[in-house]
């Protein structure tokens, strides 16, 4: 009701003002976020060419004939070449396992923050938030020095006498898992905390008054209530990790096949823009369901609905 009153006035007093307020961000996002996807889709049907830009035009107009030439070769190649399929599967596996690890580590942390004293909470949230503002590049680089064969971790383990020769961790999938969990953990904790802190503790008290064990009430009350936080956190980790480039590039080795890295190589090293576009289109097709899930949970959050 209040909203409607607000809106009506906005409409009446300055005609066009409302359109302007909606229009400016809408047009910007349409132009620089949505439209580009259609161009990617278009170029994924083109052929690579030695030219500037390095692809062929998919339509031509000559002698009153409009020709549309769709080259499905890029997609056929993605399906035929085992490298690409392995890279997609590798990315999905990496993203899935890291998401589960982040949830397992992040949930108790978010829970501990939410149940801390109020003043302590703001400091703890700040401590969790700060790394998300720091370059992923630098945080991953920090691990390169720790995990390398003559790095700190191996030096420590050897001086403790636990191992005789350095473990090969850098440039393996294990290093990528460490890097991904390390970099994305805050993105799991923050939405979980935002959700957990809103919970009404009287529910838990009531349950314990009625004889429910602590674990039972945690599992049957806290976890279901934090569903939106869990979805948002998991999606904030899963989706970007599928397309992650920096971490597999710096910490991974030859065995690490991830689609973000392959796309980068196709684009920058092979200069094959159409294949890179086709890779992006397929990646987006795989991610569209998680992205919609995320958007829904965000929309609920933004409108303040529980």
């Amino acid at each position, binding site marked *: 009701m*209040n*909203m409607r009153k*607000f*809106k009506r*006035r*906005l409409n009446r007093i*300055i005609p066009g003002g*409302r359109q302007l*307020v*909606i229009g400016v*961000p*809408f047009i*910007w*996002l349409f132009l*620089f*976020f*949505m439209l*580009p*996807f259609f*161009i990617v889709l278009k170029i994924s049907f083109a052929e690579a060419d030695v030219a500037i*830009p390095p692809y062929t035009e998919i339509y031509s107009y000559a002698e009153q004939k409009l020709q549309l030439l769709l080259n499905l070769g890029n997609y056929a190649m993605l399906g035929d070449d085992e490298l690409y399929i392995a890279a997609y599967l590798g990315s999905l596996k990496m993203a899935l396992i890291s998401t589960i690890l982040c949830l397992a580590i992040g949930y*108790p*942390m978010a*829970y*501990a923050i939410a149940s801390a004293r109020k003043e302590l909470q*703001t400091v*703890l949230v700040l*401590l*969790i938030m*700060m*790394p998300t*503002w*720091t*370059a992923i590049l*630098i945080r991953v*680089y*920090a*691990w390169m*020095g720790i995990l390398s064969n003559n*790095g*700190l971790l191996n030096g420590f383990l050897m001086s403790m006498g636990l191992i005789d020769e350095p473990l090969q961790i850098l440039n393996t999938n294990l290093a990528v898992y460490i890097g991904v969990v*390390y970099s994305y953990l805050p993105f799991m904790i923050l939405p979980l905390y935002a959700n957990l802190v809103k919970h009404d503790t009287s529910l838990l008290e009531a349950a314990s008054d009625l004889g429910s064990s*602590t674990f039972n009430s945690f599992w049957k009350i806290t976890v279901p209530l934090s569903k939106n936080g869990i979805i948002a956190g998991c999606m904030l980790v899963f*989706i*970007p990790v599928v*397309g992650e*480039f*920096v971490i597999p590039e*710096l910490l991974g080795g030859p065995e690490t096949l991830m689609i*973000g890295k392959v796309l980068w190589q196709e*684009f920058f090293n092979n200069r094959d*823009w159409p294949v890179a*576009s086709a890779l*992006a289109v397929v990646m987006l097709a795989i991610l569209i369901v998680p992205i919609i899930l*995320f*958007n829904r949970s*965000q*929309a609920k959050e*933004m*409108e303040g609905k529980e």
Partner: protein
Amino acid sequence: MKRFRFSSLMLVVGLLFIYLPMLILVIYSFNASKLVTVWGGWSIKWYVGLMDNSQLMGSVVRSLEIACYTAIAAVALGTLAAFVLTRITHFKGRTLFGGLVTAPLVMPEVITGLSLLLLFVAMAQMIGWPQERGIVTIWIAHTTFCAAYVAVVVSARLRELDLSIEEAAMDLGARPWKVFFLITIPMIAPSLAAGGMMSFALSLDDLVLASFVSGPGSTTLPMEVFSAVRLGVKPEINAVASLILLAVSIVTFLVWFFSRRAEENRKRAIQQAIEESAADSWKQPDVRRAQPEAV
């Protein structure tokens, strides 16, 4: 309360896991030895050496410039988007709009970067702009994805706000624009500052988007660092990384400090207003009773 203790332990271990690598990085940036894994005593020679590296310094200036423009534009755009999402509940294409605002948060950067580059190339062919890619194209890319972060932060604040203040101003005849700039903006100012600082930091950090949409001669700091890091760990890079960490920590601390102070001021003002109005209502009967006597 066994679970409580377990989660606290996890929190401590998790924070150590998050901060220990960064701490090690900073300590090793003061390592005198050229061998990055051998400790050779304290030294600041790598920091001094950075000053002479003009290519690196050029990229630092360029990155800071882009980050400033991004922060300003992302706050403006993100605030508008947040305002639309929280205050205008029904219009055509609202679901699409909501999706467009939040999707950049999760969209893999390689996809966003590639698609924006292809857009710029297509635009250059069709309308002749942008002729060359550089600061402007990187700014557009960064603004688009930072605006999403700003929108999330600001919309959280807008939702908490008491609508009645804005309504009161409009009932008194203020125009919506005036209400927005004189009432809404000051009330959400801390979150605007937070969003701006966040955009600044995110823009300063970005490697993937900048790599796609930059042109020759416009390498940013993360691009410089990345090309050096690819070849392995180097003491100079430790120093650069530590400086970036320091800059981000300062920015984060400032955001926290100012938003906390603003919050405290706001609470104090509300408390004061409540006390004053309570005192007034207490006084009022006296005033009325006193008046007839005076007449």
